[in-house]
């Protein structure tokens, strides 16, 4: 399966098992979503369970909260992460804190899915990676898969979770892994081991990172599209890197990350979002607190530049293999 089919399968499996699971969002019903993630679900489960909504992210999130309070398990799609902001107040002030402020009497088990990231010539309004804006909010679980297997497992786990979950879907890797080189022909997921996705129910738990490649020279921490970029960059440099896919940003698997860095003594962190106060800053601080006495070099971060995502300079903005390679050199030969 590609990531779109895997996400579709996750919703299908969840709706089949649990009649309280509903899907709502713009274009998700009859049309099946602009990226086809909900294709066929309305035909199978009806228009009361796969609901086409008005174009109002605030309304979508708020209605999902109300449905969640009244016993449903809503899966809300925001068409692009870049368009979530009208719903941000409902997520930050309401969804994230409902359990806390009502001392546990009320909660809304809402999952919010949204495609994120660049690489599709989407310009500044279809390319953003705003994960840290949600990771910073107490009460939200946040995840970003790097492959179809994890996408399905994390989405089912999200739907079954009683806490609100924000699931970021890197749209550049919806159809295949991407190593950062836009001139290479596209690679489909069916040639990648993580494109093998069981049709039945399974979960990938929150709070668990995955060591994608074991190594001893340096620990590279990444998630989403960037996982594939750092793998390719480390391979082309012939580095024996340990590569870790964060997957779950909140809760964060501190042990897996820090045990690795304590072993290798070196750490590079990569994400596509802008650098300043990005999630990499949290990761770097966590690694520093836990691994300071084992570090052989300053922790390096690779990220998008601190500008909006420019349409004409997509690949100059994107943290590709060249940027990763320079940072890897800096972490391997710090002086």
């Amino acid at each position, binding site marked *: 399966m590609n990531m779109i089919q895997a996400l579709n399968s996750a919703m299908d499996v969840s709706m089949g098992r649990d009649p309280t699971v509903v899907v709502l969002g*713009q*274009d998700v019903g*009859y*049309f099946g979503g*602009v990226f086809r993630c909900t294709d066929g679900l309305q035909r199978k489960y009806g*228009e*009361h369970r796969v*609901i*086409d*909504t*008005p*174009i*109002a*992210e*605030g*309304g979508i999130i708020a209605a999902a909260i109300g449905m969640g309070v009244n016993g449903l398990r809503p899966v809300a799609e925001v068409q692009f992460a*870049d*368009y979530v*902001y*009208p719903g941000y107040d409902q997520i930050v002030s309401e969804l994230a804190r409902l359990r806390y402020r009502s001392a546990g009497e009320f909660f809304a088990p809402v999952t919010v899915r949204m495609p994120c990231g660049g690489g599709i*010539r*989407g*310009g*500044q*309004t*279809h390319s953003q990676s705003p994960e840290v804006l949600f990771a910073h909010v107490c009460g939200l679980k946040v995840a970003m898969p790097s492959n179809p297997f994890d996408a399905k497992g994390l989405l089912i786990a999200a739907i079954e979770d009683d806490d609100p979950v924000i699931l970021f879907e890197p749209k550049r890797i919806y159809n295949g892994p991407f190593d950062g080189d836009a001139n290479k022909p596209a690679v489909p997921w069916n040639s990648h081991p993580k494109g093998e996705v069981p049709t039945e129910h399974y979960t990938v738990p929150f709070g668990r990172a995955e060591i994608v490649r074991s190594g001893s020279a340096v620990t590279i921490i990444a998630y989403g599209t960037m996982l594939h970029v750092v793998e390719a960059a480390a391979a082309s440099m012939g580095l024996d890197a340990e590569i870790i896919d964060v997957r779950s940003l909140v809760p964060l698997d501190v042990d897996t990350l820090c045990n690795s860095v304590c072993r290798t003594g070196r750490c590079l962190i990569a994400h596509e979002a802008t*650098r*300043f106060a990005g999630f990499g800053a949290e990761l770097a601080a966590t690694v520093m607190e836990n691994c300071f006495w084992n570090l052989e070099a300053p922790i390096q971060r690779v990220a998008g*530049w*601190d*500008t*909006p995502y*420019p*349409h*004409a*300079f997509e690949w*100059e*903005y994107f943290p590709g293999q*060249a*940027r990763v*390679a*320079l940072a890897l050199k800096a972490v391997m030969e710090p002086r």
Partner: protein
Amino acid sequence: MPTRSRLHVPAPPARPGQPPDFSYLKLSAAGAIGRPEISASWRELGDQASGLVRVLDDKHRAVGPWNPRLDAQELQVGLRHMLLTRLFDDRSVRMQRQGKLSFYMKSTGEEAVSVAAGMALQPGDMLFPAYRNQGLQVVRGQPLVGLMCQLLSNTRDMCKGRQLPVMYHSAQANLFSISGNLATQFPQAVGWAMAAAIKGEDHIAATWTGEGSTAEADFHHALLFASVYRAPVILNVVNNQWAISTFQGTAGGEQSSFAARGPAYGLPGLRVDGNDFLAVYAATRWAADRARTGGGATVIELVTYRAAAHSTSDDPARYRPRDEYQLWPLGDPVERLKQHLIALGEWSEERHQALSEELDAHVAASWKEALSYGTMNDGPRLDRDLMFEDVFKEIPEHLRRQRELLRAEFAAQG
């Protein structure tokens, strides 16, 4: 009578493979709706928000109280702008299909909405367009080459490569920067108009959004602020029936008209035939005169049809009948104005053909020139250092450092 609540989910009258059905559309005969005084209170207004303001009748005559009585030359200018907009759209999509640009959005079938309104306003009026209002750029005399360079993100792109195609702007022409986010500029136009009133200036603001986007809270903020402060602004809702696959009923058009949002906030609402150049012109003039004389804001719903796909990334055959547009009861805005001029004895098929060829040659020549300034893939490119400018007025130290790092990245690649 239902004995318990049942979720109502609006559905469009026809899906692919089914015969189009526009029986849901409430129509009025041309000339049937009254034209109130511009000083009238919204309470004194009659059926303007529920009926349909129309001027051109089935015999291509201009009838009724909304007839703006434009002279033949003005009508010919309007026809020229609409035709140019259409030909520009057509060739732009061809350029996208050839891979010269990443994306495009046509306004086919909706040309009167922008062109007639643009002509009814004054050059000093500030326009806050949405992304399907290219006719406003044409009316305001924006050179096609300049628009095309924006589409190409090339060395002469007004946005310096930062925006998706069609997100134009021109401070000099009073055309605000177009946002890819929906309805966000609606309340901003109200703020602009509030400032004009604060400063005691006569210029007004006008803004456009789709009926789908009226679902966003920003739309409601705009109506509220416009009403509270009696801001001199025209709030246009382009009801082209479809927002990607979302039909107008899902946006709330099934129970009530979009024009009727106005009276709910104490603003007049006019529901207008958006494919009738004369009706759009007259309604815009009414609202503009009212705003300019202290009467505040008007909500205008322009009933039209999105004849093309939402964008070059969309395939409407997946969600609506292919031939829906052919059966659209309000016809085609270019054809209707053309037939009106012919009926007046001020136009002919031959002149139309000649104009069409002249404009298409102009569009083709403009494309040739624009391409010479580069495309996304070939020819000269914008300096990549530009991406670090305009994040702030002055480039801060951390962005200077990142600019150096990007240079180093390219130096390392050779």
